[in-house]
């Protein structure tokens, strides 16, 4: 301790404090921004009871923007014909009910639990059909061809979502979200229904088997370790350059200052 205090007026002390501060901020940020576990959604078949309960939930949570009969208003589009899959996606990712009108609805902790989500989905499906919630075996990645998934993801998805699904910018404040928290069901549903700005990839252009391959690619890649060290976000050379300048040149400049520092004669 006295060793530190004795050197508090050295020029290097200032650098050391700044460095400690940066490390502390980085560590705290990393600790607090850890991603949570993706939620899993179950999707049993809809029933009449679901539809009725769903109607009640719809009226309570959704009708103010989407209209009493889901016909749409100024603030929310019509939901007739969007299908159970779309509803399941939007509600299970917490995007709906929407908190504030922005360029895009962000993912947030879901307000309604899986049962309620299923019920609303059943109600909306009853209004005008549309894509159904995929069954668990439809989204299971067992035996999937990850290589084909990589190729198709790269061709159809990476230009928005980035090569591993780390997200990307769109115009006017929109963005393609990172896929780190999406469940297989949600990924399937997103491809199928094309939420917000995302285009629709129906089951005849990308078959269910191919969708499973893509899901396998996304889920396996996001959980695979980074053999080279910290991933730096997996967004390419921008963060690499930052780390190289701040970490690499910064460290070497500090060492250069040390090497060439004038010796203080003790006593």
């Amino acid at each position, binding site marked *: 301790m006295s060793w530190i205090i004795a050197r508090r007026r050295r020029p290097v002390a200032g650098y050391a404090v700044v460095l400690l501060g940066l490390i502390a901020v980085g560590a705290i940020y990393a600790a607090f921004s850890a991603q949570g576990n993706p939620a899993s959604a179950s999707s049993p078949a809809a029933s009449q009871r679901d539809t009725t309960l769903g109607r009640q939930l719809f009226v309570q949570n959704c009708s103010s923007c989407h209209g009493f009969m889901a016909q749409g208003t100024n603030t929310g589009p019509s939901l007739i014909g969007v299908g159970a899959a779309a509803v399941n996606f939007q509600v299970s990712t917490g995007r709906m009910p929407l908190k504030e009108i922005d360029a895009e609805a962000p993912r947030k902790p879901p307000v309604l639990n899986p049962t309620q989500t299923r019920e609303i989905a059943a109600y909306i499906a009853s209004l005008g059909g549309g894509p159904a919630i995929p069954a668990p075996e439809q989204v299971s990645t067992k035996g999937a061809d990850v290589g*084909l998934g990589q190729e198709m993801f790269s061709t159809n998805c990476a230009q928005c979502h980035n090569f591993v699904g780390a997200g990307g910018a769109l*115009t006017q404040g929109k963005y393609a979200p990172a896929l780190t928290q999406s469940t297989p069901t949600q990924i399937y549903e997103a491809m199928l229904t094309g939420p917000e700005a995302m285009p*629709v990839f129906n089951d005849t*252009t990308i078959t269910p088997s191919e969708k499973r391959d893509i899901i396998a690619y996304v889920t396996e890649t996001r959980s695979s370790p980074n053999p080279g060290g910290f991933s730096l976000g997996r967004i390419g050379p921008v963060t690499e350059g930052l780390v190289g300048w701040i970490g690499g040149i910064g460290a070497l400049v500090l060492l250069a200052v040390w090497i060439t520092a004038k010796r203080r004669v003790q006593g």
Partner: protein
Amino acid sequence: MSSTDGYTGDVPPGGPEAGETEASRTPHRVIGTPPPAEERTLLGTTQSEAPARPPRELPADPDDLAGASRAEKIVAALFILAMLAGIGFIAAYIGLPVGTGVDAVLRSNLALGISMAVAFLALGVGAVIWVRRLMPDVELTEARKPLASSEADRKAFAETFREGAEASQFVKRPILRRTLIAATLPLVVAPIVLLRDMGPLPGTKLRYTVWRKGLRLVISDTGRPIKPADFDSPGGMITVIPEGFQDNDNALVKATVIIIKFEPGEIEYPTNKKWVVDNIVAYSKICTHVGCPVALYEQTTHHILCPCHQSTFDAPRGAQVLFGPANRPLPQLPMGVNSEGYLVALSDFKVPVGPAFWERG
């Protein structure tokens, strides 16, 4: 200052300079500029009993000998650490295999990298402490000679050069000179000519793609042909390529196409409606700026955005440029259906695809 070797760090064996004191006659002081206060060592008084040794330019030992022996222990410990880390590197190389998957590579990479880093950094830190604490502190002054040579030297050089030029007859005999230059010119040009076969001439290749009348549009990577009924979801978009060219990169880099499905009534001029099938439009996927694939389609705004430099194209209206550095709209592929109902091209693109070039017109 002597001019023969330019270095005046030597202390003259004779008496002191005028005005300097006893203390400044110590061997490791330098003539010319007294070093700053912190550099003055304390050994001045103790060094005076030195016997008839030649004057030193560098002191043998640092001032703080106690601190030096402490530092020596630290440096030695660091060097031993570096040695252990180096051995650790070799052990990690031998002991940690790769080739079984990503985890193995992670372990091996981390172990090898950390041991290598520790070895080098410990060596470096030890070396620096060695210099700072174990070597005596000196500040020496060396004279700079003016870089320009003396007038005499320059004159002599000019004379030698002139004499040689005269003796060589180069200046006096213009025929020799000119024919020499003429002889070497083709040899200089020849290496450039040798590069001609590096590639074929462009000809008209950039104007055309492989699309032909009747060639089916198939989905990229899976090769499935498409019927309009398969692509019946408004807001849908998919990348398609000409059938049979999946593995032909040279063809795909110009021939890749995106097809977009619209709601009825959304497609407007200047999209060519004769090339639209069932509200499905086909545009070249190759950006007209510098050629990146441009498939970022926003379903809500109907904008096609290129991720490279953000050129934006208006899909319902002939892919006209809305923003960004691209100057031309994405070419529209003339599309129809064949007798089996599959989407086919009616012909090649009517304009060259991709980046503009001089002969494009």
